[in-house]
Each structure stands twice: as C-alpha cells, then as structure tokens.
C-alpha cells in the first residue's frame, strides 16, 4: 500500500466518533427520513416544511389575482351555505364506495383464481378471465361509466335496472375488478410452488389447496396493494357524478351553477380528504407492521 492515501486501518476502526462516513455537523438527511427518532431530524423536517409553506403562501398571496380567487374559491359564507347539502351527498359517495368495494374484492378474487387454474379443462375459463382483464384495464373508467350508464338504460330492456347509480357502481366494479384481479394474481404467484406441492401431496384437491394453503398466504401478501386500491376507489366514486347522480361533486356543481362560486367544490375536496388520508395512513402503518413481522424471522 502506498502512503498517498492516509489509510490507517487499525485506527480507523476505533474511531466511530470522527468517522469518515458521516460529515461533521450534517443533519443526517437519510437518517431523518428512515427514522423520526432523532430530535434533530424531526426539527429539520419541521423547519423545512414551514419554510416551504411560507414561501408558497407569500407567492400566492402576493399574486394580483389572489383577492378574486380567494373570493371565488375560499369564501367562508359560501362554505357554510353549501356544506350541509354537499355533506349529505357525500354520504351517498361513501355508500356507493362500500358497496362497490365489497363486490370488487369478491369478483376480482374469482377472476384471479380462474386465471391461475391448471389443466386443459379450464382453458376456456382462463381465456375468459384474461380477455376480461385486458378489456377493462384497457378502457378508461370514465368511458365505461358513460357507455354503461347511458347506453344500457337506453336499450330499454325489460327487467334490466335503469338507475344511473346502479350502472355507475357496476362500471366501477367491472373496471376496478380487472386491476384488483391482477393484484390478487401477483399474490397467488408469490406463493412458492412447493406450498402447492405440499398441499396436493397431503391429498387435498386443487380447490382445497387453493382455499387452505395458497389463498391465505397470497391475500396476506397483497393487503397493502389492496388498501392502495381502496384509497383510489374512494375518490373515483365521484366519477359517477357524470351520470347525474347527486353525490358530493354533483351537489357541489349544482351549488356552483346557482351561485357562480366555486367554494362548494372545495367543500367536496375536503370531505374526500377527511376519509382518504386516514385510510392511506392506515395502509402505510399496516404495510410497515407487516414488513417488521416478516423480517423478524430473518434476524
């Protein structure tokens, strides 16, 4: 070894305080991101957030159009006036959301299971589910809502519901199920082949192996991804407003049309946030907990 680099191994090992790998006085940006435990990191995060907000506020508040915009979008009187109706309509959003999610989780699981079935006898079912997934992942959700919501009732078929809300929910279920089925499928494929072999070797049928051995593991693997889909669906129910269903966004637009003030839309936005942020935080918390539980076995 030449003397040009000042390496002194024996000493370097003993010197964590003056480590060459931590710049002195550095706040440890990555440490702060990885764990909020360091009070210095937390302070830094807090300060930079405040700074960002202040700069953004100064820029916005000093723009020429601000007073006009504030009156159009952030009018307290209009906020109060529109709130009760928008909130009542938002309740409908939540009902549609829950109904749609229940059907999506069930229907998508069926599609995914059909897609992973083995044996030549199941080829038509595999084919069907593949075509379904391709179709509904390929067409924009908004188009599905328009086509089913306006198209099917126009056919005037006997015994077929004409309610736009019904077809709006059907559109959500069809479109989201295609994505969710792929989430389930990735979960099914993440379970090692040896688990299936073990189940079959014990005499379980293909269905029993799925039901008792594969699915419980597969679903556990994709819970974070399913929760992510939940957050997304929660706001996409608002798309049903294009069919004239008086949910929150529709109700806000009606108010806007009557008063020429946009604050009602902000009311709707806030209501959606109140629901989606906790769900998103829950998803993060669950994912982190699950990861800890899994890595524990490795240590």
């Amino acid at each position: 070894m030449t003397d040009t680099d000042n390496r002194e191994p024996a000493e370097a090992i003993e010197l964590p305080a003056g480590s060459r790998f931590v710049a002195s006085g550095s706040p440890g940006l990555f440490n702060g991101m990885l764990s909020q435990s360091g009070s210095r990191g937390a302070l830094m995060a807090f300060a930079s957030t405040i700074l960002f907000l202040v700069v953004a506020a100064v820029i916005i508040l000093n723009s020429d159009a601000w007073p006009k915009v504030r009156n159009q979008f952030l009018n307290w009187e209009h906020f109060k006036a529109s709130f009760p109706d928008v909130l009542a309509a938002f309740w409908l959003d939540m009902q549609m959301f829950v109904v749609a999610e229940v059907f999506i989780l069930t229907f998508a699981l069926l599609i995914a299971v059909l897609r992973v079935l083995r044996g030549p006898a199941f080829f038509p079912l595999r084919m069907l589910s593949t075509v379904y997934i391709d179709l509904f992942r390929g067409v924009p959700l908004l188009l599905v809502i328009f086509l089913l919501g306006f198209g099917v009732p126009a056919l005037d078929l006997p015994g077929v519901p004409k309610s736009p809300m019904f077809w709006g929910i059907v559109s959500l279920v069809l479109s989201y199920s295609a994505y969710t089925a792929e989430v389930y499928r990735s979960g099914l494929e993440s379970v090692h082949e040896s688990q299936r072999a073990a189940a079959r070797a014990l005499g379980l049928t293909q269905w029993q192996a799925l039901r008792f051995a594969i699915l419980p593991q597969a679903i556990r693997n994709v819970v974070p991804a399913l929760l992510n889909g939940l957050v997304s669906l929660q706001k996409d129910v608002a798309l049903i407003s294009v069919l004239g269903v008086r949910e929150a966004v529709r109700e806000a637009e009606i108010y806007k049309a009557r008063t020429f003030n946009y604050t009602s839309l902000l009311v709707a936005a806030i209501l959606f946030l109140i629901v989606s942020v906790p769900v998103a935080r829950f998803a993060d918390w669950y994912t982190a907990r699950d990861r800890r539980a899994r890595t524990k076995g490795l240590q």
Partner: protein
Amino acid sequence: MNHRVRLEGVHKRFGDKHVLKGIDLAVAEHDVVCLIGSSGSGKSTILRCINLLETVDEGAIYLDGEMITRRETDPNLVRQFVGIVFQSYNLFPHMNVLDNVTLSPRRVHGKSKDEAEQRATELLERFGLSDKILEFPDRLSGGQQQRVAVVRALATEPELLLLDEITAALDPELVGEVLGVIRDLISDGMTLLLATHEMGFARDVATRVCFLDDGAILEEGPPAQIFSDPQMPRTQQFLRRVTEAGRL
C-alpha cells in the same frame, strides 16, 4: 412377494432432459429402501412420480398391485395412502403446528376436529413436540420443522412414506433428531422409500440400497454389499468421493 410399490420401466423427461431412463424398482411391505447417488441423478423425481406429483412418460407404477399411472387414477386417492416429506419441510407458514398436522385428516380423510387433534397431539408428543403444538413454523428450528413435517405426513396414516432428502437442509447438529424419528418409524414397521445423502444412516437402517446415476439404477443390493463391495466402477467412484468427504 407382496409389493407395496413397484416401478416398471419408468421414463421421465423434462423437455429435452431425460431424467429417468427406465427405472425398475420394487418396495415390499416393511422394506426400507434407500436411493443414493449424486444430485440430479433422479432420486427426487422417482419419489415425485410415485405420489403422482409428476406424470411418467413411459412405463408403469403399481401401488399394492394396482396400476396408478393411468388416466382414470384419482391422484388424491393415491396420496391418501402415500405420504411424502420434502427437503425444505414445506410447512404452511400461516398455520400453527396443530393446524398443519390436522389439515389433511380433517379435510381429506373426513375426521372430526376433536378426533384429528387428539391423534395429532399424540403423534406430536411422541416425537417430542408437545410444547410446540400452538407455535407457528417460523418460530421452530429446522429440525423441529422437519419433525412436524414428518408428523404431518404420518397423521394421514400412509401405507408408504417417501422421504426426499429430508435432512439435507438441516444444520449438521439437527440431523440426528430427524434421523431418530425415522428410526422410530422403521421400528414401527413403516414401509419407507427415501432419497438420502446420509450414507452412514443408509448403511445402518436400509434393507436395500439403490445407487442411481444419470437417471438409471446402476446397482442395488443389501447395504453391506453396496457399501463394502460395490461392483460398478461408477458406484466405487461415488462411494470413494463420499468417503473422502467424510460422509461415510
């Protein structure tokens, strides 16, 4: 002689790879037949063919005199009489030990929950696992997991047990406890067909040893003959290498 399982001219190919090249093998009741040979010689494939996890391309397999390599055979019925234990244990990680063991007795063999759990508890106690009944597999050592896997296979009361290098993934000091379990089974009169790298164990317990090379049984006989007086040059070479590696 009454054969539990008999293979006649079994061939198996995976794509271009000719893995089994005409295997003839018979295991009688209470036999302990050890398959030895290097990795990739076809030991595991033989076992997987017998419980129909793989289909054979040519030849036939008979279980208790009945040909099982037919289209009409229900593999699930065959597997109710043939247990298998894998090298990597393959316990179900989302189930505790008791649920792992009782799954097949309850769902396949139609036992009641109480009946299945009572039998499972007896077996687990017998193999020194009574304090692990409610543990999940990831909380157990490799040796304990493999013993649970053996109990899981035994709980279905198989007539023939296939063991696929069940100690190969274990820490050396955990091998003994699993081999001890196998000795117990042998003294019970269980019919065993096992693929193994534990030559000392094979010499000790086998009624017959088959040396496999490149998909064919090159030499077979009683362990004393195979290990002390192998006839084929390839067998001699294999055993010399194993001895040099300190495994015999």
